[in-house]
């Protein structure tokens, strides 16, 4: 099943990206090709294996539950596009 424009519009919405009509057309064409290529994975017999998410053997690496010094608020807020000096500022949500 080939990717349709409507699907690109749907996943762009999920991704919080606005696409122009021209971009929707372009990405639809690109994605048709790329997804067709990605479909090649179906040629591999994987009936007897489990998924590998991470290559290392480690699972659930815990750290001690200790209070440590965190980063300085002022320093962190320096990168914020908008703040009131103590917190990030955004338009009213409610």
């Amino acid at each position, binding site marked *: 099943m080939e*990717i349709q424009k409507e*699907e690109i519009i749907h996943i762009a919405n999920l991704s919080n990206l606005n696409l122009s009509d021209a971009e929707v057309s372009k990405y639809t064409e690109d*994605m048709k090709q790329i997804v067709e*290529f990605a479909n090649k*994975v*179906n040629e591999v017999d994987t009936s007897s294996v489990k998924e590998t998410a991470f290559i*290392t053997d*480690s699972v659930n690496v815990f750290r001690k539950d200790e209070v440590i010094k965190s980063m300085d608020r002022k320093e962190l807020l*320096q990168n914020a596009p908008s703040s009131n000096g103590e917190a990030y500022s955004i338009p009213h949500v409610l």
Partner: protein
Amino acid sequence: MDICRLTAHEIREKYHQKELTVVDVTKAYIEKIKQEDEKIHAIITVCEEEALKQAHEVQALFDQGEKLGRMAGIPIVIKDNICTKGIKTTCASKMLENFVSPYDATVIEKIKKEHAIIIAKANMDEFAMGGSTENSAFFKTKNPVNLSKVPGGSSGGSAAAVSSSMAPVALGSDTGGSIRQPASFCGIVGMKPTYGLVSRYGLVAFASSLDQIGPMTKDVEDNAMLLTYIAGHDEHDTTSSKKENVDYTKALTADVKGLKIGVPKEFMGEGVNSEVKESVLKAIDVLKAKGAVVEECSLPTAEYALPAYYIIACAEASSNLGRFDGIRYGYRTKNFENVHDIFANSRTEGFGPEVKRRILLGTYVLSSGYYDAYYKKAQKVRTVIKQEFDKAFQKYDVLITPTAPTTAFDIGSKINNPLEMYLSDLLTVSINIAGVPAISIPCGEDSEGLPIGMQVIGKHFDEETIYRVAYTYEQSEK
């Protein structure tokens, strides 16, 4: 003496003989960047003031007779997706154009502790997505060997900087070939370490299960030295290995007698340029003459690594890049009435076309109805590929392949065809999928004079054998 032609270990020797000072060397490289970068465009930020200040401090320590490590006073260029406190880290994206990290990445902390001198941050494909450094939001980097060619990518700025002697050493990052392919295209040495050997803390995440930071250098000795200092467990990166630290320079013996080399036939097949193939086979013959035992072998599922890679890497990227919301850091649109506008418009205006393409693909393969067919399936293919590498390494000490199917291609020749661009990762991605280490070292040039790279792949955490093979070849070609 042309200071900028020296390797890091040669500079270190000159410091010891008191033939050069750290200030001389730092000034020489900064000057070189100012001259050369006008035509190459490898550098996003030059850290002149900080570098010179640090150079004076390190020289003062030398003058006081302090015993400093081997990286002391060595200028280094850092790929611009590795966080440096107080210096911009842009990821070559409009999204992070003015971002100044409030902390140092662990690798930066480590090299600062060793008194290395950060002189510049290097250009790259935006968020490390690309194979030509043409996806930088700021400018395209050119290949120093031939200015009409791409330097490769995504660590193209780092590779071009070392290749054109703007720095003796650099750090890059490699998710599917982003250290090795540009190293190959620019004629330098680039190592992608075992997943988990080097901390990823402070590396802006692209695909967290594949990303690794690694050294890019003029020769194998510098490479082994730099890796020695950046490797090691870090509590800030729970995927980093607790393995004991190794001095990789101790592995640099020019001896491969009895060593078993496998040459996977799938990596020498269709799509690999004949001049590239010939050069790599010649290099393998050199190792054979030195006593290595060479055999053809097979990794039958390797051809599925590339589609699996693009599914996994894009899935992880779409999730990782969700953090760019225009609220906490990075670009914020001027055009908004509500919070949703901030999210969508900031991302739309802040990300470039290739980043958007990969977010879309990643969101697609993770979306309901497709998750099992793509993401889960790709992770199973990953298991099969890993098993094949494990099996090959029961028989062989290293595997050797070309690094890239071609030499550096023309600027602009692949930028409009994403799939063709992805194919330049053909021979490197399976290594990230399996999590094993691999190096690219120069092994000749094609008829146009463009460098060819040979890829030496090793077992998990066996960077030492890789370095031994690379060093043996390099020394025999001197």
